[in-house]
Each structure stands twice: as structure tokens, then as C-alpha cells.
């Protein structure tokens, strides 16, 4: 009896993140079944990006194309995020700013 189930094809993808606080950027090579939350965790720990602290409530992480809030999609895989919300997989990190 043959097994008709096909395992989904896993593809390597690159996620580029720019830290808008200092202009530094880093690229993370992942498989497209990786959760967005995993990349977010790596982002905060990345010496290249120089965030140097844990997440704060006012932090923002936006898609460079269209501005979608990446934190909202932490539970998605990179494939779903790319297919449905942020095709470019280029994210922009920003800490809090204030003004009036």
C-alpha cells in the first residue's frame, strides 16, 4: 500500500533585519518552516544588530514592504509570513520614539 502523503518541501530563506536605531543590519539564513518567533529571538541576541537588551513593550518590528507588524505573526512560519504578509522578508526594528 502506497503512502500518498507528500512531505512539504523545505526551502532555505534569508531574513534581513535592519536596526533603525543605529542602521546596522544582519541576515539570518533559515528554513521556511522556522517560526517567526525564533528569528525574533535571534534578532535580540545578535551582536551584529547591537540591540543588546530584551524586548520592550514599545518595540516595533515592521515589514519593509507595507509596514505589517511582524510581532503579530510570531507564531507563523517564515513561509506563511512571506506568502501572506511580508513577501520581502526584510524587517525593520525600531525602539520607542516620543514627540509632540
Amino acid at each position, binding site marked *: 500500500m502506497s503512502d500518498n502523503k507528500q512531505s512539504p518541501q523545505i526551502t532555505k530563506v534569508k531574513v534581513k533585519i*535592519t536596526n533603525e*536605531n*543605529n*542602521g*546596522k543590519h544582519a541576515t539570518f539564513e533559515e528554513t521556511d518552516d522556522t517560526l517567526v518567533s525564533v528569528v525574533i529571538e535571534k534578532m535580540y541576541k545578535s551582536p551584529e544588530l547591537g540591540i543588546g537588551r530584551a524586548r520592550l513593550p*514599545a518595540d516595533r518590528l515592521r515589514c519593509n514592504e507595507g*509596514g505589517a507588524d511582524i510581532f503579530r505573526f510570531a507564531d507563523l512560519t517564515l513561509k506563511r509570513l512571506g506568502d501572506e504578509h511580508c513577501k520581502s522578508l526584510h524587517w525593520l526594528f525600531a525602539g520607542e*520614539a*516620543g*514627540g509632540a
Partner: protein
Amino acid sequence: MLPRPEPVDAQVAAATFSAHLDELWKPGGIAHTHGWARFDVDPLSTIVTMRAERADGTKEHYFVRLGAVYYDAWPPTVAFVEPDKWMQGHVASRWWPQITLPPWLGMHLHHELGGRPGQLVCFTFTAEYYMTGHSPNAEAVWKQGVHTVAATLARLQEALRQPYYQKPSA
């Protein structure tokens, strides 16, 4: 109340400002991401050309003059300038953008700064913000070693995109 900006040693300010700007213009850097162009006026000031896009896709550009007199103990000074003499305008013009303001930004065309009328592009990543008596959240305050001119330009660029940017003010 936060302390007012004090001028930094000019050579140190110029070297830091130049190094931080150069970082943004490296291959793959944020300047290329957003299509910024840069023209250095002198060691302590530069003009950055920034693109704006309306909701209907119409594109315009603006010139932002950044000054490093207080940099990077404080953020750069910021003004939208007119291309004939790279000076800030004092009346609504093609070169002063009309923006639906996000909560972290104020835009004042006429404001008293040190007894002189001038623009006030008002958020925690401009030096002028600290000259006008604000009390921001601790996390929003400019921090030397954490923030660079990138933070200033990135927030301006965000305001020049949707859903905030409308059109030139005249």
C-alpha cells in the same frame, strides 16, 4: 526635565557624524533600502534627500538638513530645507511636507528656538526636541551608543510613507 543640548567638541562631533553616516551608506545599508542621497555641506552638516509617497502612489522628494553641533551626545538638528540655498523655509511651501502626525512626532513650521523663529521637527531623535522642554518616556530618550543618525532618518522616512504622508504643504 531633560538637560538642554550643549555643543560637543567640533572635531569629535564631525568625526562621529561622518562615521555614522558612512555606516548607513555601506552596500546593503539603510540608505540604499530607502533610496536616500547625501550631500555633505561641511563637516558638521549634511543634506539628505528623502522620498515621500502619497496614498495614491504619487512620489515627491524632500531635503532634510542634519546638523552635528551636539552630536552624538544629543541627536542631530533637523530641518526641511529649500533647494535654492539649503535654508529652512518659514512659510508653507513645496518643501514642507503635510503629514498626518503619528503619536511620536510633532511638526511646527513656526516655533521660537533660542529667540529666533524656526522649524521644530519634534521627536526624541532631534536636538531641537531637547531645547523645548519635554518629558518623554525614559526608553524614548536619545541614548549615545544606542541611537545614531539612523534613528532620526528612519523615523522621518516612516512619516514620509503611508499612512502618514499626505502631500507638499503648498
